[in-house]
């Protein structure tokens, strides 16, 4: 089935099978591989992206739901030249190891800070509870979100 959508402001279309997820559309059809596939069940948050401004696990959203909608991914946040404050804070705080969870974690953190610019530890923990990281033990991710909040304020 033909899906027409915008990704990071760019018009995109692709022909996908009816069971395809938004994540498969992004990664396999449109080449936005920043959103990662790690669990296919909405448990790990590696595929976190925005659908019409709402934070979603792209693996749980049928691709058809993106038809006519605006999708925003980690690729919208920064590039090699300029980084979003959250991306820079993740590097400064040492919150990146293997990096596989990082795009989803960054997206979820940006989403949190857009809603709540000065979150407490508890608020950060609750907001990122759906994003699994196997490398860091999370302490430096917590540090990174505080650092980004300070940078953005």
């Amino acid at each position, binding site marked *: 089935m033909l899906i027409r959508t915008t990704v990071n402001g760019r018009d995109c279309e692709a022909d996908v099978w009816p069971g395809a997820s938004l994540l498969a559309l992004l990664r396999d059809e449109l080449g936005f591989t920043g959103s990662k596939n*790690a669990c*296919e*069940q909405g448990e790990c948050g590696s595929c976190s992206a925005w659908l019409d401004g709402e934070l979603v696990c792209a693996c749980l959203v049928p691709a058809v739901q993106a038809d006519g909608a605006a999708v925003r991914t980690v690729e919208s946040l920064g590039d090699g030249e300029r*980084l979003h*404050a959250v*991306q820079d804070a993740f590097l400064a705080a*040492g919150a990146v190891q293997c990096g596989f969870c990082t795009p989803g974690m960054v997206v979820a953190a940006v989403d949190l800070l857009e809603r709540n610019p000065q979150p407490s530890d508890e608020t950060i923990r*609750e907001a990122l509870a759906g994003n699994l*990281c196997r490398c860091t033990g999370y*302490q430096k991710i917590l540090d990174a979100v505080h650092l980004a909040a300070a940078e953005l304020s």
Partner: protein
Amino acid sequence: MSTTVAPTGSGIGTSARRVDGIPKVTGEYAYGSDLDAENSLWGFTLRSPHASARIRSIDVTAARRGDGVAAVLTADDLPARRTFGLEFCDQPILGDGVVRYAGEPVAIVAAETLEEARQAASAVIVDYEPLVPVTDMEAALEPGSPRVHDFGNVLRHVHILHGDVDSPEAEVWVDGYFETGTQDQAALGPEAGLAVPASDGGIDLYVATQWLHVDRQQIAPCLGLPEEKVRITLAGVGGAFGSREDVHMQIHASLLALKTGRPVRMSYGREESFHGHVHRHPSRTWIRYGATRDGRLVACDVRLLLDGGAYASSSPAVISNASTFASGPYEVPNVRVEGTVVYTNTPPCGAMRGFGAPQVCFAYESAMDLLAAELGIDPLELRLRNALHTGSVLPTGQVITGTAPVREVIEKLQAIPMPPEEPASGRDPISYPGGAGNVSRGESLRRGVGYAVGYKNIAYSEGFDDAAEATVTLRPGPDGPVASIRTAAVEYGQGLYTVLAQIVRSELGVEDVVVEPATTESGSAGSTSASRQTTMSGGAVLGACAEIKQELAKHPLEEPISRTFTYHHRPTTELDEHGQGDPHVAFAFAAERAVVEVDVELGLVRVLQIAAVQDAGRVLNPQGATGQVEGGTAMGLGLAVMEELQLQDGNIRNASFTDYLIPTILDAPPIVTEFVEVPEPGAPLGVKGVGEMATVVATSAVIAALRDATGRTLNRAPATPEDLVGIRPPATTAGPAPVPDVPGQKAIPEYLGLGLGQQELMKARER
């Protein structure tokens, strides 16, 4: 909204930013699962649903007719060697007449889309004759047990005898029985890669792995190709923790690519990932300590059993490690260890962070707490009285010639402040045990404190010729000299490349250091495992820099100077018939204190703080080293309270992140990390690797704290809510597992002349 990225150059001892950091935060970093090529196909694996079965026939007719299908291959289609393996080639590429575990690959498919490949795999008709499996490690040792392999179920038995374990000097004895469950590495990045057929008939493989050269050594014979026609490039690795030591999709994707003449990408889904890599061995340990009344250890007698699953993987090395560390980081003059790893019809176990050390740490540290209670001595004081130090003699007879700052590690841990007391009521609900579930208001909270001390070897042991090659090039540039590092060493998140760049910056005085892609065009750097790469590849880079500095002393930098250096650590030896020898090159030590809060009615846990002190030799990147301790601690915490692969008749029941739980940010406590820095003599820059030690001790520290809070036995990891409230009784045993009758200390396949794996590489180098 944006900040400018600052230049990041800095040398040894600074928290230099990751060299691979920017593409990782932007999403541009290409992991194995992100790779694609023009005209590529998707590969997919059909796996056995049976733990043990004879394959009567496989009918691929319908599958080959499926939409978009380019190839369907079974064991009948294999072109050359039919088995592979890290230490012994005992693992079939595709089920060959029999299957020995549920999840074993039996057919592979390539098709235009992943969905078409999946559909075709489901159209393969396999006629199985199910056999009675052996799925319990003690049952595997019974005389009438089904045999996993023709030669029986014992994979390796290690016997260590030092002194007299019935020494009359011992006045007090404690006995314990301890179990650990099967842990999964659960790296977020799946097993994945891309195989591209080359015009010379060879294959170019891009894959997430841990050791390019040992992959190639296993892959090439299975493709019927000389090694030079198998060129491997490291893809981005989304975590490994040991799970990428073994070949996963490499041979399958290469076979499909060679068959179809088209690039083939494979990327396991999460369920398949649980079946497609090895796990941490489940263990059963019977341990007995004897001591004098004033708390001096006299004897330690250990019987240890690990379940290796259906194939050897690295189990022979894991049982050796576990056995040599089984009496703990303590001076014990009389030790006997009987360590056995068996084959069963369960998914293979192999390398995972700690490599046998966490399982025995849980046993010896739990037993040390029993002994402390029996003697009425403070648990840390008992450990201090018996702590290993330089010059101590280990159960193998090995004398510690390097550093062993066990006392310093423990004393530094004692100095870390405890977390403040918190009121039982009126808190933010999320700060109660089970907080996000909103089930408690603090009615039945009890705090507990537990400690664990442990140790592990650095780098390879038992006579393995451990080596790493690296090339450093220094060139003049318009803005000053620039350097590059070429290495086949694998970076999978721990920060190796950053540390190597820091060494070059400090040694050569250049800011601009590039780490080139890792390929088999470089010489082997060995595996990124065993906490060895900072020592080994760090040593190689340091050696290359030293040679470049010698050149620079002779003349200024006008042309590029390139030097390749291979670092070897000093030789170690195999174990003799009594388990005596000099098997390890160096040791690192760690101690952790866990403070927990348990809702003793609901069995829910909140870890309030973990304090961690680690012997690191010398810390090259404080932030990176701290990150290793924090991440390793979280992994050990997982095994303590939630992580276990549930097997029923050999089938994994929880192969998903919905059912196999790993710690979330709500479960992870604040971790206070400190290092003891006593440079290791003979090691490059005095370093010791920092990747594994926190995982070795964290499980034991957390469960000790849970015992303190609940007063329960908790002799099994993970400790479940049922254990914490006492619904489930402690793990019981009918007595120690028997000592098997074996020809000697080596792995059984070695006596049978089965094809060797890593050893071939070592012997080839000797030639």
